[in-house]
């Protein structure tokens, strides 16, 4: 079937198209060039006056894995307020802070998103992450595999194994856990917490391993580069949420020595210690460091006011923050000599000084980082806010007067401590399209996604322009996934199933000799039973795996 999208105003930064009126043709799920053989169009959509972008891609969202399910189980009262009934085409479920899998897929699609990436796939919990993501309809998905507090790596570093051996282990883990990138959470800190260390600075050693976070970050960043992964090492830094951590973050940027590094939810790592409350914004310093270091990318992890739940691999920091739990219940877990997790419900309040300033710091970073290709729109769902708040966040970025109106309502001391009111910048459609589409596809390493030129998969979102950007981005007119019309007027009309994106770098299989011994001695599962096979993802008849090329091969 040949579909024609006629006359829309297209924002396709990957092709350098910034608001030009043009037609798009779709055939067999992909975008194709205008037919020259007079082939008739089977279906035409008149998009004159509409805004057309590729499907949005959330490059950091907690949509699959054990900590999310703990968060769901912990908060039945949060679901009760947001039931989602079954329809002729969709399954029932529940929403708000940590929605059920089906509802996650529908609500993302209804906002024009067609892909989401789980940033904290514990290798030992990867099966669950993929099974949960396997029950998220419509979206493409993938995961960054978490290393850095796993005892095998820390033992390698203590034993001064060479970089190649580390590379082999990293690549082996990517294959076994089916990931597209490598994530570090509080490098070495999750392990240190198990040895009863309650904090770990960048150059502080793990009490058992004599290894510092800096060393772990450098080694893994090098492994990612040498293996040729497109996605840079994805780093949740040390000292999350600690006043004064802006210095840690700046030091982390310098310490990586020019290697590619992605700093995630950087808002939570941009705090100073100035002012009466000993809590201040490091937003400007962080933005300047990103502007000056081209090897660095970041997503913001914006907080928005209201009830949510924080779910993180960083059990050290989550344990430290449990006293802020609202409602007052929380979970920490130590996990399988592999990692950990902490789940703490949170209610961000605009009249709380710290929360109000966190809100402003995130926006400062968005607006002060110059290059939209290196900064990404996230709330670290659900940690800063549920993903359903993205249209509101887009309005804050695109509409200065709306932003300043909001600023005027937050805690007055926080207003004094932020430069936000003096920032005039408003994001353009093209910049939003970079941040949420073209840039996201590029940084993850997705071939044939996030762009609208012929050859790309037809993931396309169509909006009606509206001065109220929140309203506009809440309810697209049409969303196409792989060429299928899945959303019309903001509602799911058809359910399809996306693919799972992975990378498979080469490695020396002899690493399995050491791993086999390690598994038999210390772990609780046989090596052969640990590795996830392709059919575990595809056997339900809905799932599929898409392998992406390594850097330079795309």
């Amino acid at each position: 079937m040949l579909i024609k999208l006629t006359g829309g105003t297209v924002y396709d930064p990957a092709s350098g198209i910034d608001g030009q009126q043009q037609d798009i043709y779709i055939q067999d799920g992909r975008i194709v060039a205008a037919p020259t053989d007079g082939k008739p169009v089977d279906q035409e959509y008149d998009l004159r006056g509409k805004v057309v972008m590729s499907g949005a891609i959330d490059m950091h969202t907690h949509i699959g894995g054990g900590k999310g399910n703990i968060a769901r189980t912990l908060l039945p009262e949060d679901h009760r307020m947001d039931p989602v009934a079954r329809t002729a085409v969709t399954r029932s479920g529940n929403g708000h802070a940590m929605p059920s899998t089906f509802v996650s897929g529908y609500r993302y699609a209804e906002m024009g998103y067609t892909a989401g990436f789980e940033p904290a796939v514990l290798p030992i919990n990867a099966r669950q992450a993929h099974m949960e993501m396997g029950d998220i309809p419509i979206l493409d998905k993938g995961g960054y595999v978490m290393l850095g507090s796993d005892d095998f790596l820390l033992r390698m570093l203590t034993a001064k194994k060479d970089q190649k051996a580390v590379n082999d282990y990293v690549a082996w883990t990517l294959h076994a856990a089916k990931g597209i990138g490598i994530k570090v959470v509080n490098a070495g800190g999750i392990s240190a917490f198990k040895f009863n260390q309650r904090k770990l600075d960048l150059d502080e050693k793990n009490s058992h391993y004599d290894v510092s976070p800096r060393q772990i970050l450098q080694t893994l960043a090098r492994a990612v580069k040498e293996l040729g992964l497109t996605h840079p090492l994805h780093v949740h830094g040390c000292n999350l949420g600690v006043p004064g951590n802006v210095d840690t973050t700046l030091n982390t940027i310098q310490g990586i020595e020019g290697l590619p590094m992605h700093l995630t939810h950087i808002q939570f790592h941009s705090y100073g210690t100035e002012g009466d409350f000993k809590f201040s914004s490091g937003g400007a310093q962080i933005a300047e460091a990103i502007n000056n270091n081209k090897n660095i990318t970041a997503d913001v992890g914006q907080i928005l006011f209201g009830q949510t739940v924080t779910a993180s691999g960083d059990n050290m920091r989550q344990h430290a923050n449990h006293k802020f739990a609202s409602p007052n219940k929380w979970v920490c877990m130590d996990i399988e000599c592999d990692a950990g997790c902490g789940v703490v419900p949170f209610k961000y309040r605009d009249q709380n000084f710290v929360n109000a300033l966190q809100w402003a710091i995130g926006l400062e970073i968005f607006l002060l980082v110059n290059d939209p290709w290196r900064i990404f729109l996230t709330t670290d769902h659900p940690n800063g806010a549920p993903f359903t708040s993205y249209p509101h966040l887009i309005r804050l970025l695109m509409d200065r007067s709306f932003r300043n109106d909001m600023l005027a309502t937050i805690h007055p001391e926080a207003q004094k401590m932020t430069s936000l009111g003096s920032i005039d910048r408003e994001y353009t459609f093209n910049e939003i399209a970079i941040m949420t589409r073209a840039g996201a596809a590029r940084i993850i390493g997705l071939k044939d996604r996030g762009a609208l030129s012929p050859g790309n998969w037809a993931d396309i979102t169509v909006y009606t322009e509206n001065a109220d950007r929140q309203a506009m981005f809440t309810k697209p007119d049409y969303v196409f996934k792989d060429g299928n019309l899945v959303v019309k007027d903001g509602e799911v009309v058809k359910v399809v199933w996306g693919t799972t994106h992975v990378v498979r770098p080469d490695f020396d299989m002899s690493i399995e000799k050491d791993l086999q011994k390690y598994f038999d001695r210390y772990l609780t599962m046989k090596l052969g039973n640990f590795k996830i096979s392709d059919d575990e993802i595809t056997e339900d008849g809905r799932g599929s795996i898409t392998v992406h090329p390594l850097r330079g091969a795309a």
Partner: protein
Amino acid sequence: MTEITEVPSPFCGIGTDDLAIQVNGTTLKVTANGCAVNTPAFEQPITDTQPRVAGQPVSLETAAAKAAEILRNTHLPVFGGCATDVNGMRALLALADRSGAVVDSAAFNNARRNLLALQDSGWMNTTLAEVKNRCDVLLIVGTDLEGFAPRFFERYLWNEEAMFLSDTGSREVIYLGKAPSGNASTSPSGRKATVLPCADADLPEVTAVLSALLKGRPLQAQSVAGISIADLQSIVDKLKAAQYGVVLWGAAALAFDQAELTVQTLCSIVKDINLQGSRCSGFPLGGKEGDQTANQVCGWTTGYPARVSFARGYPEYDPYLYETQSLLNNGEADALLWVQTFNSGAVPPQTKLPIIAVGRSGMIFEKEPDVFIPVGTPGIDHPGHAYRLDNVVAIRLKKLRDSGLPSTAEVLSAIEQAL
């Protein structure tokens, strides 16, 4: 005849995956690393191979059509048991969503003791590999651990080497409440567990005293439930001095009223030890007959653990109202779909309502159900996934033989199609 090695078990809950099993046609024999739980569960022969409607052998198609007909005419069917693998549970929830059913895992009344504590105040827990490599003090509360999982000690405490303990045999094991049924808790070097016995019903009081001692509250009593305060103080001291203490309980064994409050006390003891500067973690048992699997899959599909009603078109959770037995007793339910693929002895509860039983081959019924569809067992007749007791690790179950028995997922999907 073939032998399959590194076979994972869905039966014992502790993720044993080193079994060797000889396959001769459809006959299985555990040749290495069996135990009193796993060996009979794997070796049970296949008896039923064909579905029945009203006791008469029929095709799967006919049985599914009859099941659909029963469900079509109901207002509140109950899907009980829920003992299956991940794909089976996915299909069960899809069918429940479609037919407006209540979904209720057979183990829920036990799991509820943990879930109520979790949903009220949370916990700090750990997993098997951390126990294996770190735990130097293990407090076992109110449960006979080796009765629950015969190989627990061998695999996770008396392992030859641990990463962070120089001698695994020097681990301290303390029983509070139930005494052990055997000697598995004695270390290979002969070190015996400390046993401080009391009746199950006294555990609320005993654990409350333990908590008070930890918080440094003054106590007048010299003993509680026959246990001296000095002995309880020594437990507190040992946990606080431990490198990595673990407090283990089995919710199923805490068979007394309001046992969730005792679970909550244990969880708060663990949290308090961490707040007082030492590391300690909780460790709840479970993982048998798909109980964790049901809660996990129901968790991501509905947001709630596996006692949920779809009657209003969306999932609602109530840990008491949607209990199978009370819905049957109160006349609220009008049909029962029973799913039990691991244990042919776990037959549907007695009821006059129409029964659709999707069960492990070999179920003997007191009253023949309206529809009986024998299904394969995950990890024997078809591949699948099951959650271990620690809830983080899903094990990949293997297919060991060609029995021709369909999976739960195939059967329930066939019923949904027939609707």
